[in-house]
């Protein structure tokens, strides 16, 4: 799908890092730095759906929060359409957020329980002073229809607790797209929902991309939904981006051991054997001798002790547009490793 569009970069993350300090102070053994994101390089192309896949705690949500600037990166640079937005403040930040919106993971928590649906969805319009209340209402009705809540007249004057989880998530999506943003960050929008709702949410997101031309960053822990929805995928492990490439390619021919482990972990319908396809995940973690080595060393079944434990792996162009961060791919020619 991405071939038909020109590869215009809309959002770029350059060497972005984010650290958290553990609670407590020096006397209680706290205050250690925890790396949530380590020197991430990413670029999102205009009009694509980019999937960021990783296990919980891998830093994928942090990455989304950095992009909408709920948090500030400690290092590196984020640019939107060439403009540096890393440390925006005040009015400029507000203007930036007109272009970049977010859908949160938990629809039960992301809507204010004391605010009606109409007011929740109109919030971005009100804060940005776009039109009068009647205009707001009109746009709210339209955008609720777009998000699949129709007839929207029945939903506007309700409180969140009167809606189901799927309906709430549609409201959250409606709120995110009411300003017609150019970039939408969707942080696991379906992880709290039934599978049947998930497919509908995916359709809405696809519709947002196709009809509004928005670029979507889709954060997920599920390879299956990433495959269903995304044009390109980035795999993130403990704050390190380890593989990136077109969705089909990454899933059919994963190169990085962690990506392979993720695909092994995907439940497969109707297959009785428990034998993993790749078997790259170590059952028990092995101790790492130094922190300088490969981030996946402790759990990688293929790792070579000297090489992987000691030095940080380099990026390899393993296939057209597909890159992976691994020592072991060094010798593999791009075509040979697809077996």
């Amino acid at each position: 799908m991405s071939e038909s569009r020109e590869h215009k970069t809309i959002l770029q993350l350059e060497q972005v890092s984010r650290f958290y300090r553990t609670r407590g102070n020096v006397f209680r053994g706290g205050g250690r730095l925890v790396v949530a994101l380590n020197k991430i390089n990413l670029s999102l192309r205009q009009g694509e759906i980019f999937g960021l896949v990783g296990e919980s705690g891998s830093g994928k949500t942090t990455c989304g929060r950095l992009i909408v600037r709920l948090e500030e990166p400690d290092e590196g640079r984020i640019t939107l359409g060439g403009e540096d937005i890393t440390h925006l403040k005040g009015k400029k930040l507000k203007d930036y957020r007109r272009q970049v919106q977010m859908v949160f993971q938990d629809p039960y928590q992301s809507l204010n329980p004391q605010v009606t649906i109409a007011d929740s969805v109109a919030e971005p319009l009100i804060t940005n002073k776009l039109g009068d209340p009647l205009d707001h209402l009109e746009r709210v009705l339209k955008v609720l229809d777009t998000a699949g809540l129709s007839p929207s007249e029945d939903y506007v004057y309700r409180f969140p607790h009167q809606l189901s989880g799927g309906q709430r998530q549609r409201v959250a999506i409606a709120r995110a797209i009411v300003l017609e943003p150019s970039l939408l960050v969707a942080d696991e929008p379906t992880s709290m929902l039934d599978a049947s709702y998930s497919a509908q949410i995916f359709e809405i997101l696809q519709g947002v991309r196709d009809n509004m031309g928005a670029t979507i960053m889709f954060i997920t822990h599920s390879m299956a939904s990433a495959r269903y929805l995304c044009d390109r995928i980035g795999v993130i492990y403990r704050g390190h981006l380890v593989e990136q490439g077109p969705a089909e390619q990454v899933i059919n021919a994963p190169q990085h051991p962690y990506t392979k482990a993720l695909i092994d972990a995907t439940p497969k319908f109707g297959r009785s054997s428990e034998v993993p396809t790749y078997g790259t995940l170590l059952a028990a973690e092995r101790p790492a001798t130094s922190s300088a080595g490969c981030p996946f060393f402790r759990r990688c079944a293929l790792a070579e002790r000297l090489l992987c434990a000691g030095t940080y792996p380099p990026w390899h162009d393993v296939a057209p547009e597909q890159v992976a961060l691994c020592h072991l791919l060094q010798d593999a020619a791009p075509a040979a490793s697809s077996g």
Partner: protein
Amino acid sequence: MENKTVQILKAKRRALWRQRFMENWRVFMRNPLGRIGMSLLVMFGLMAVCSYIPPMIDPMYHPMTGVDPKVVSSVGPSWQHWLGTDFMGRDIFSQLLAGARVAFLVGVSAAFMSVVLGTAVGMTAGYMGRFTDTALMRLADMIMVLPTLLVVLMLAALFGQLSIWMIVLMIALFRWPGVSRIIRAQTLSLKQRPFIDAARVSGASHLRIIFRHIMPNVLPLAFLYMTFRVTSAIVIEAGLAFLGFGDPGTVSWGMMLQWVWKTGYMFQAPYWLLPPGICISLITLSFYMLGRAMDEVLDPRLRDETQAG
């Protein structure tokens, strides 16, 4: 948009708020505490309203200045004076009615002021965090440990007789820390909720987040604490008045108790002693019961428990 759709939507909006109110009202009234508290309160409300009637019938029923010329000392209940008269011939029943008015005035205004102050401080401390939080909460701690009645007594001794509004102000100024602690805790937890992040992404300013997103969520709690504050304000005012530091220009229940005690009728005139005492107990009880029933409206987890028990 056509006018008709707008009309329909406006009707829906009204219906939503009405439905919400009715739901809460139903839960409230299903609770026996709520029913008793509400009816007691309605009774006291009627008393306060009716306090204007006796002086209109006859000037001798004026609670403060009206004296029955035929009476020289305290007499018991009669047709003329339903609850009897005090030592100089003033009607006790009309004093009791006037006392209800003062109790409401003191209770509600002191509670309102302390809750407004407590909520403002609590939300500021909780939302701003860091230094502001520490400073405000230490201040709250300092005021919280002061025994209100004692401090107000000392101030009254220092400045002579306090007017009723000064007393209200004092109570408000000394009773906000409890409210602010609770509101702060609530604000701290609300601040972490994703809908605040969502509001930030929507472009809401700090002020808008505080007033539009945090305040509606803490207001029910503040309102709940107001009912408990009313109770304590009434008790403090009654205590002050009984000890002789009340506003000499108002007839409050505490004042009536002081008169009984001071004139030595404490054990001779139960018709004079009991009514104000009972009224103070009942009005504090009714506000307390109101608060308990409201607690149930605000916290759905309490509902099943009551139904089972």
